């Protein structure tokens, strides 16, 4: 399994990671090898096997009532924000 540097750039774009051009060859090589290792899965006969998404089968995703259970913690949470103003998170202008 061999990836191209173009594919790595596409994947990095989808993952919102700005790679430097000089980093791309090493990721291309290591991801190709990882996908090669993963391709061992082809050996397994999985016909008729139900895919498993959760280790405890039979567990049902719990739901809760749609009620308020905690107070407004906006100020406490925004103490970790890089940039806020009037209770809002600031980002670069999106609409000109």
């Amino acid at each position: 399994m061999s990836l191209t540097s173009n594919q790595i750039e596409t994947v990095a774009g989808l993952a919102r990671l700005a790679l430097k051009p000089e980093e791309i060859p090493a990721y291309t090589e290591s991801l190709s090898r990882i996908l090669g290792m993963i391709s061992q899965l082809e050996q397994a006969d999985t016909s008729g096997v139900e895919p498993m998404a959760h280790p405890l089968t039979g567990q049902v995703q719990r739901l809760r009532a749609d009620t308020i259970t905690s107070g407004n913690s906006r100020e406490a949470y925004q103490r970790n924000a890089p940039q806020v103003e009037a209770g809002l998170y600031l980002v670069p202008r999106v609409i000109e």
Partner: protein
Amino acid sequence: MARTLAELAAGLAARKYSAVELTRDALARTERAQPQLNALISITAEWALAAAAVADQRLAGGQAGPLTGIPMIHKDIFCTEGVLTTCGSRMLSNFVSPYDATVVTKLKQAGMVMLGKANMDEFAMGSSNETSFYGPVKNPWDPTRVPGGSSGGSAAAVAARLAPLATATDTGGSIRQPAALCGVTGFKPTYGRVSRYGMIAFASSLDQAGVITVSAEDAALTLQAMAGFDPRDSTSVDVPVPDYRATLNAPLAGMKIGIVKEFFGAGLQPEIEKLVREALAALTRMGVVVKEVSLPSLPLSVPTYYVVAPAECSSNLARFDGVRFGHRCENPKDLRDLYTRSRAEGFGDEVKRRIMTGTYVLSAGYYDAYHLKAQKVRALITDEFRSAFQDVDLLLSPTSPTTAFGLGDQTSDPITMYLNDIYTIGANLAGLPALSMPCGFAGELPVGVQLIGPHFGEARLLNAAHQYQQATDWHLKTPASFAEGFA
């Protein structure tokens, strides 16, 4: 000299020392060891002394539990209110958590005294603690070697007897493998047994919180306080928590232990195989019956894991966008630039590799070939475990194919690094409880033996490990430079 958490608790109850005295001692050991081991990211001395004073009041007032006043260390993956919580990453190097993880709340309520936060592989991705933004942890048995990972700081801290307990998390072996490499006991409960609320997510269908301790009895004591249903974790399981300590002394006669054939193949250091078989022999002298079992799909657990875990990681780590918390790049020119540069600067190399692997296997056109296929193989592996547990009570294997390797030895090749978890990943894929405990030394380096149990088989696992530790003293061995004990 107190050698374990249980012995320390007895000393506190007998007023041999106060919680404040214990805490001062533990802080002094921790400060002294920090330049040698780099086991912690933060030391919370002021917080610890205040908590110890409260614990002393509880002890004096007769309101103490078995953990009250005992010093401990939290892996830096657990959110701690008002304390830096980094997950070993530059991304969170400025993050002061606004709330406590459920595990943190529960151990606080039990009166435990947090000394600080343990170093770890970045976002728990690694098997050597070398991916940490805060630098590698050194193995107390040989500081030129790694402690294992991702809970390398937790394992090194307990091995160096800084504290008798460190919390840890295990997604593919991150409690058990460092416990083996550092000569301590590491316990990963059943998936869903301990709340994941406030535990920074890596791969949500695999992550589970547990403990690193000196003994299985200490693991039982702390698991008792940590386990239980939590409505704030949607995968927490509402199953009653038994009294783990009550069954520690049950006789092992007639217990059936399976030896997994696939776990004794190529790649296993011969000295490790010899010590693991000696551990088995010690168990048979207690009346355990041994049976060989085969789990033919188990050799596919590493490739299965390296689809499932990166896929879930790519999704979980999408939240780090430089907007609401965490690292933000300087002078972003637009929103996309803010996202991509903040993430590129905030994440280290291995985290990026896993995010990209996960993004690739989930991307259009590849989903069926990779993610769906891996989920099916995961089902096969889980079924094989389930059939094995119809014949045997527990499974036994080595924890790690090698002893602690040298710092830098495996950093150039991710796949070599991934294979360190070849014996531990299966339990995560199937959600099973498992532990590693010391079973001897290969040269100067500790070796661990792994026991795996069926879902919610914690009590049986702890029982078997405790009985083994009554007959042996490998778990009480300490590195020469850290031999002073807890009190």
